[in-house]
């Protein structure tokens, strides 16, 4: 994109920012400009470099090369405090508020005004000042209200008030509306309009393109760490943005596989849990990979957790190999042939402080137990653990002593695969199986998946990477705010259309109901 203010007059300017992590270039000469009172929309898929760019702006990372200027002066923050001092405020998706403290305490958390000469907080002053700030964002609660009692939207307003409290000149919103109701979003847009009128520059990051086009004066699209395009709002459309986001053709990263789907092994009908998923129906065949696409918060992981018996559901049925699955719990689901690779492998997938063997064996212990006391048969267990770990190519030979925390991300994920493979399940639920692992390890994960499918397993493949879904799946199901909004067949895959179905809420709600396929 050629910046509209090539002369360098813009209030905030970033030029040719580049950044690498561990030799991987995540940001390639990205630049943007922001005027006072301008709203700049920043869009791109996960991993496109948006957050890295914002982290550089916020002083969390330092760029390898490139410069930034703020109000005509060079701007080189080395930490979040520098950014705040310079007048930049970040309003994150996960709000950084202390729920146990009051609004006023949150607003002043980074510097309480003291009573003169005493180490005591000047309560009256912060109360008065907070009241003034809350009026600016139309929040009527008394400053002493505990933040825990506020709704998501109200909390966001508190964050904005906090930013106004230290006189922010630039406010950066990261996915501000994902957890807001429609009405709360409308209110937010009004406030953004007001910030604009006050001459505050706003960077608005969002997946919801309809919102972006509505509130932003100009849009910039990032893809693979580089600027893919952009321009003033008048020149942009949703279709145009999406084609910029998806861009390149799917490469050869995905090993080819023949697909011969068999019997339906997992059938879900009308699965509903209020506030989480609504009327989800799907059927999964053996020898098939069914992809699940959607934005963060679309209910994909939640669906997976319900299917594996970790979370409850209110109505609907789950059928596994023609038998209904009643009162599912992980133990019951495992007995019925399900396996679940969780999204967060550190928190839920692995025992980081335990050995590879202990991790791989964990789900299968009962099959190696003998007699009344359930005594373990170690030699057999060790042999099988070694065999299955070799099969997925875990890169070490010391399974018994090597702790999982010392392995690379890719190897850790292989350990999780090995854990489930040892049980020989027939249905795999994979939630972001390649998150945070390098390209080589990704390829190996794809190979494992393909082998499983060839052996007749059925796979529910949740991923936020469109290319991965297109490259690996036989069908792709799209979810949006807890509902299934479409199915796409292989051969008919079109990244732009899939993204459209994933992002469509609020934008074209009436159409979407018609398009729902079953």
């Amino acid at each position, binding site marked *: 994109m050629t910046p509209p203010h090539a002369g360098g007059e813009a209030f905030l300017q970033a030029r040719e920012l580049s950044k690498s992590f561990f030799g991987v270039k995540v940001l390639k000469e990205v630049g943007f400009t922001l005027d006072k009172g301008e709203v700049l929309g920043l869009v791109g898929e996960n991993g496109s470099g948006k957050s890295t760019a914002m982290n550089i702006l916020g002083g969390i990372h330092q760029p390898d090369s490139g410069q930034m200027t703020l109000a005509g002066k060079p701007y080189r923050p080395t930490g979040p405090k520098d950014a705040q001092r310079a007048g930049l405020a970040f309003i994150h998706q996960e709000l950084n508020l202390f729920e146990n403290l009051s609004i006023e305490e949150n607003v002043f958390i980074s510097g309480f005004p003291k009573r003169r000469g005493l180490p005591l907080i000047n309560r009256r002053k912060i109360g008065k000042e907070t009241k003034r700030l809350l009026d600016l964002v139309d929040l009527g609660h008394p400053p002493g209200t505990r933040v825990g009692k506020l709704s998501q939207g109200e909390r966001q307003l508190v964050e904005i008030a906090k930013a106004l409290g230290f006189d922010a000149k630039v406010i950066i919103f990261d996915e501000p509306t994902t957890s807001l109701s429609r009405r709360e979003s409308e209110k937010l847009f009004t406030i953004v309009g007001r910030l604009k009128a006050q001459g505050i520059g706003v960077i608005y990051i969002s997946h919801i393109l309809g919102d972006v086009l509505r509130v932003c004066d100009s849009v910039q699209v990032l893809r693979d760490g580089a600027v893919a395009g952009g321009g003033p709002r008048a020149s942009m459309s949703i279709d145009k943005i999406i084609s910029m986001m998806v861009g390149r053709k799917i490469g050869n990263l995905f090993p080819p596989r023949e697909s011969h789907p068999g019997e339906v092994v997992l059938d879900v009908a009308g699965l509903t849990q209020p506030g989480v998923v609504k009327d989800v129906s799907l059927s999964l065949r053996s020898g098939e990979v069914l992809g699940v696409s959607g934005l963060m918060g679309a209910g994909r992981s939640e669906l997976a957790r319900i299917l*594996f018996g*970790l979370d409850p559901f209110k109505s609907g049925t789950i059928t596994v190999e023609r038998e209904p699955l009643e009162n599912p719990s*992980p*133990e019951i689901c*495992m007995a019925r042939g399900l396996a*679940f690779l*969780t999204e967060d492998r550190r*928190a*839920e*997938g*692995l*025992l*980081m*402080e*335990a050995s590879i063997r*202990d991790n791989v*064996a*964990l*789900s299968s*212990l*009962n099959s*190696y*137990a003998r007699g009344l*006391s*359930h*005594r*373990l048969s170690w030699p057999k267990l060790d042999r099988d653990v070694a065999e299955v770990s070799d099969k997925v190519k875990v890169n070490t030979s010391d399974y018994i002593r090597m*702790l999982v925390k*010392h392995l690379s991300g890719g190897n850790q994920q292989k350990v999780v695969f090995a*854990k489930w493979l040892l049980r020989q399940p027939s249905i795999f639920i994979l939630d972001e199986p390649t998150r945070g692992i390098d390209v080589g390890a990704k390829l190996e994960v794809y190979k494992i998946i393909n082998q499983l499918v060839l052996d007749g397993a059925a796979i529910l493949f949740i991923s936020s990477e469109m290319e991965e879904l297109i490259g690996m799946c036989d069908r792709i199901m799209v979810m949006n705010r807890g509902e299934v909004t479409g199915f796409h067949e292989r051969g008919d895959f079109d990244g732009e259309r899939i993204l459209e179905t994933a992002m469509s809420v609020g934008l074209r709600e009436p159409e979407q109901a018609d398009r729902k396929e079953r």
Partner: protein
Amino acid sequence: MPIDAAETPVDTKVEIPKVRAFRRLLERLILSEYLVFYITGVYFLIVWPIVPEIASFSSLRNILTDMLPLLVVAIGQTFVLIVAGIDLSVTGVIAMASVVGASIMTSDGGYLQGSALAIPVGIIAFLVVGGLIGGFNGWCVTRLNMPPIIVTLTGMMFLGGAAIWFTKAHSPTSSIAGLPRAFVAIGGGTFAGVPIALFVAIAVVVVAHFLLSQTVFGRWLYAIGINPKAAKVSGVPVDKAILWAFVISGVCAAITSMLLTGRLETGTPVLGQRILLDIIAAVVIGGTSLAGGKGKIIWTVGGVLFLVTIDASLKLLGSSLFIVFAVKGGVILLAVGLDAMRQRILARGSG
């Protein structure tokens, strides 16, 4: 780094290899999972010249018999600590089981006074009291999601009071005496010169060690202690296993209660009142982590041995009770400090 300096081949100085070897040995000792045994040994060797009596047969025998009740209850505690819990109610269990069991067996108006069933039923009553209280603790922790420290702390207070009330309802004095000879032998008697309590304790050690190291249940406990969420996703019946850990702790406390009640020949509500800290300290000094996921029965044996050795030495030195407390506190702090140092060395080695 000093280690690098020692590692460079230096030909002029002869003592360098020796220093290096000594440092290696020291690090190996500190890193050893049986560190507490070495410390106990060193402590013993230091105290020996000061109070030679400590090595006498009767003193050693005292150390052994003092150790047994503490060991059994500490073993139960080890199970709970491995799942990242804690069981402070054990002293309450010891008191309650003592008076309930005694009320059945006593010849002063016991429920089964003089009956042939008195002793077996009495023993079962001990175990049932322990198992039920442990089960209740586990139920509160798993079903009601209450923090173990609060559940068992209040349990300790409640049971302490309830045991006194129970005693008053069954005896004019503050304890229940008149226990059958055969029962008393469990705590104080000998068989072929060996204390019967030793057989009981060895049985508990063997069963507990087997459970933890050889069975599926044991693997589950460690997995839960390291990461309960991952354990749940992997199909481990997390709640059930935690519940059983508390039941085991309760039953072990009840066995300890039996040993102590037998030794005193009376059921009393003040039994075990002062040993709560010793129990936790012994397990932790042995190397079991309060954060869960790490612990072994043999470590707990070492921790108990260490504490009891200190106790015995201080008694022989003629120290008064408050000095015993002060010294014990200091030594425990030292031992825990050494463990922290060990963790640092381990982290360095792996980093």
